[in-house]
């Protein structure tokens, strides 16, 4: 028997990150019982998002304009380029307000075990952007996982011949962290990344 529309909705919701079958059922019921306040606005938002939001051909960010707002923003620092794995990382950095330059979204990191090599990442345009004389610094803001670190090593090696400074995010003592409670690996990383006080 073909699945009902409700089953179809639950199946689609259950495929979303963070939702299992049980929470998908709960969410579906919530939406169906609030047709006007929740279901229709959500359906419209999803439909508009599907229609209008595209990856930016310059940096890989998601936006309803191409180039994206960040790439078009003339107030931002053209000399600094921050490389991130995913759009979510870009959002996190934007929320922090720590960086006022431009971004480059790789779309993942290198992982032979997951079948993701350089050709699957947004790299060709990175090599082009790195050659732009306006770019003076490339910040590798990649996660501290094995794949993130390996990708950072790879990019540093490939960018080594260019007249651009390649930096990485510092790793070490978290804000509000007590040295006494840090593991040895974090302390070692913090020590090797020390800087003048």
């Amino acid at each position: 028997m073909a699945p009902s529309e409700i089953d179809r909705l639950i199946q689609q919701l259950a495929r979303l990150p963070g939702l299992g079958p049980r929470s998908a059922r709960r969410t579906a019921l919530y939406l169906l019982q609030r047709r006007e306040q929740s279901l229709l606005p959500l359906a419209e938002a999803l439909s508009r998002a599907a229609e209008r939001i595209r990856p930016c051909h310059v940096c890989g960010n998601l936006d309803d304009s191409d180039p994206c707002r960040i790439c078009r923003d003339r107030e931002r620092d053209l000399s600094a380029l921050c490389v991130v794995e995913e759009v979510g990382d870009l959002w996190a950095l934007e929320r922090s307000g720590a960086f006022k330059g431009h971004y480059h979204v790789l779309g993942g990191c290198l992982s032979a075990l997951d079948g993701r090599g350089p050709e699957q990442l947004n790299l060709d345009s990175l090599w082009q952007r790195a050659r732009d004389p306006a770019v003076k610094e490339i910040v590798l803001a990649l996660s501290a996982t094995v794949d993130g670190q390996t990708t950072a090593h790879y990019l540093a090696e490939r960018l080594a011949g260019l007249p651009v400074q390649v930096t990485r995010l510092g790793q070490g003592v978290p804000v509000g962290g007590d040295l006494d409670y840090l593991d040895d690996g974090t302390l070692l990383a913090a020590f090797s990344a020390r800087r003048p006080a």
Partner: protein
Amino acid sequence: MARLSVQRFRNLRQAELTVGAGPVVLLGENGAGKTNLLEALSFLTPGRGLRRARLGDLESRLPGNEGAGQGGWAVAARVETPWGAHDLGTGRDITTAPGQERRVIKVDGEFASSQAALGAVLAAVWVTPEMDGLFREGASERRRFLDRLVYAFDPAHAGRLSAYERALRERARLLREGRGEPEWLGALERTMAEKAVAIAAARRDMVGRLAGACAETSGAFPRAELGLAGDAETWLDELPALAVEERLQTRLLESRGRDSETGGAVVGAHRCDLLVHHGLHGRPAGLCSTGEQKALLLAIVLAHARLTGLERGGMPLLLLDEVAAHLDARRRDALYEEILAMGLQAWLTGTDAAPFAALNGAAQRFRVQDGMFIE
């Protein structure tokens, strides 16, 4: 361990135990579920548990349990430490895709991102019948044994090992498929070298301190002499860590051709071996009698517990599966004396009550039958 709760774990449908600070004896026939309980306990520390099982294989397959459906196995415990009580919980993450395995970890009601959070609260060391050949067989089991001893002092060691192994597997895959660009391989080798040096340093530190603790062994257990064999471990004797990293990277670069044929790597943290000799006559442990080997293993485990108590404060859990029955009366009494003198919470299993008679009055006993525990 003050309270333990196990659900849907192998033949343990649901088990709840409240225990005191002293030793715990689990008695029951083969297949009753004694070792399964020790295995469940072992998952409250970093690593892959006492049998290195796949997480999906631990799910209870008992009739009537299939309907439990969405729930995976789970182990939870209240642990008393010198710094206060903590609630630990772990289980298979049922939201991961098929084929992927991940454990969820909870400490004091909060989800933790790594297994190291468990290691910060609780350490456990075990001796099982499968470890009877520890000194005779290949180096990998000895390496794993040593790494478990390291976890008690350095919970982040497990994370470094898994990162190293992932980089090793990625490099092997690229070499086998012949598709890795040199920079990609170089990046993986750099990651491997960084992790390998940190791992080697932690192992060296552990063996150095443990050798000191073993030197104080007296009485029924022989003194074990410990050493380490391995490239990075030896180079660290004379070179600073950064230089060892560079040397490892160079060796990995030079061996790509050979490694692509063998599927491994000629150097690295996966080549290290724990060397054990009998302190009295100097023979390698692998050439000692079966009884001597068991006594050496227990001597190391007890020395590690002493060291943990002295340096970390809290004692590790000692999980001894079918150990008592295979010791002569003199060593068994000496083992019990040590356990009681150190205030260790040792979990001992056996089929007969007789070998545990000397613990009468000091140990809590449970009879195990079909996955049920009766005090």
